[in-house]
């Protein structure tokens, strides 16, 4: 079963999700990785506005390969989310509602997510051409100097993701393998 969600994401919708749920996301999401996170944190600390409104937003940890002439976007799979852990709690405090990435998060991030009612989604690492097929529009909205790491506003259609960490402490990287192993013992 697949749950369909559209942006902006509401806290009430996110609260119903559980680790392992399959979700299709449609609407507007923003790419940001290491360098953009550093700059966003600096702006927030200085009390300045960000390139996009954080409230209810969804960040995709991704830096695409170059688009071909006439193409919407290059290959755009997720990067390892853990590298953004240090700045994530600050973004969550300012309204960030969801993240899409791959890899485990720190206990601090998981705790901050529960407090904010935010969800961490996984897109399959390396499935970058599949992700590109779900992107219908893309534009750079900030920090073009960062190249592949610039902040992009993406319009996505039914991007297939899986809930990795939910608002009640569920963590698929723990529960998924454990449930599989338990199923083999029966």
């Amino acid at each position, binding site marked *: 079963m697949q749950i369909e969600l559209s942006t902006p994401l509401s806290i009430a919708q996110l609260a119903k999700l559980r680790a392992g749920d399959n979700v299709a996301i449609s609407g507007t999401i923003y790419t940001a990785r290491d360098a953009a996170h550093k700059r966003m944190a600096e702006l927030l600390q200085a009390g300045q506005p960000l390139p996009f409104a954080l409230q209810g937003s969804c960040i995709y940890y991704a830096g695409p390969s170059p688009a071909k002439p006439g193409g919407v976007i290059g290959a755009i799979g997720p990067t390892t989310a853990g590298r953004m852990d240090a700045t994530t709690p600050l973004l969550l405090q300012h309204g960030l509602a969801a993240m899409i990435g*791959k890899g485990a998060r720190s206990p601090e991030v998981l705790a901050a997510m529960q407090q904010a009612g935010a969800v961490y989604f996984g897109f399959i690492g390396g499935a970058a051409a599949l992700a590109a097929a779900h992107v219908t529009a893309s534009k750079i909205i900030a920090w073009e100097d960062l190249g592949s790491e610039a902040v992009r506003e993406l319009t996505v259609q039914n991007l297939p993701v899986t809930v990795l960490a939910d608002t009640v402490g569920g963590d698929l990287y723990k529960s998924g393998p454990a449930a599989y192993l338990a199923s083999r013992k029966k």
Partner: protein
Amino acid sequence: MREIDVQHITDAVANMCIQANQYLPPDVQTTLHAAQRAEHWPLATRTLAQINMNLAQAADKQLPICQDTGMACVFIELGQDVHLTGGNLDDAVNEGVRRGYTEGYLRKSVVQDPIRRGNTGDNTPALLTVHIVPGQQVNITVAPKGFGSENMSRIAMLKPAQGREGVVDFVLETVRLAGPNPCPPIVLGVGIGGSFDKVALLAKQALLRPLNQPSQTPYYAQLEAELLEKVNQLGIGPAGYGGKTTALDVAIETMPTHIAGLPVAVNVSCHATRRASVVL
């Protein structure tokens, strides 16, 4: 003595950088499809189906399979009866990488200095390994390597007394520590023996062997099978979401070593295990 203009090497490398990033080798594709049929855990089946759909999309749209189009690992077996003309080999290979990554719209992921960073802008330099072999052919393999999985690779200087069991434990520990990070299902290249430097190269070379082609030494073919089975009992599964298919294959390469040592290296590769080869 056969003469080969290095321009041919540049052309071949450029081509293979693009090919390898858009199409997985047939052996890897076949293994991924077989894994999808063999999985019965629903989330794992779905994940493998998406990984296979990704391959179809990449081929259809001529997009890279993964946005991390890697560092270009280039292996050349140079026949000793070949005379290369028209320039030097290093430059020719780097020019090939430069062209392939630019013309193929591949991501440039190389920094000039490991600490001070700074993108080189064209994905050069290549990581070039040359072996001189008998004959008058040039064998070139390009294996783009992403760092999500490279970063999970490990090396250990075990004590000889730790033996086979020590090797098995170290490989399993490496996979457990890596968890979901190297984009499972993974492929493991294991080097055993030699010295600190040679064992790492052995592990990388093990990744060049087509999947499901066991070691020619029955003892190590058996160890490969044992490791694959044990890794796939860890439950990490595709993307780390749980399931049977944590690894697609384990390949071991070995060489003689010192009486006092047992070096082991595990080079972790992802489901996007890319390589392309050509003979000149």
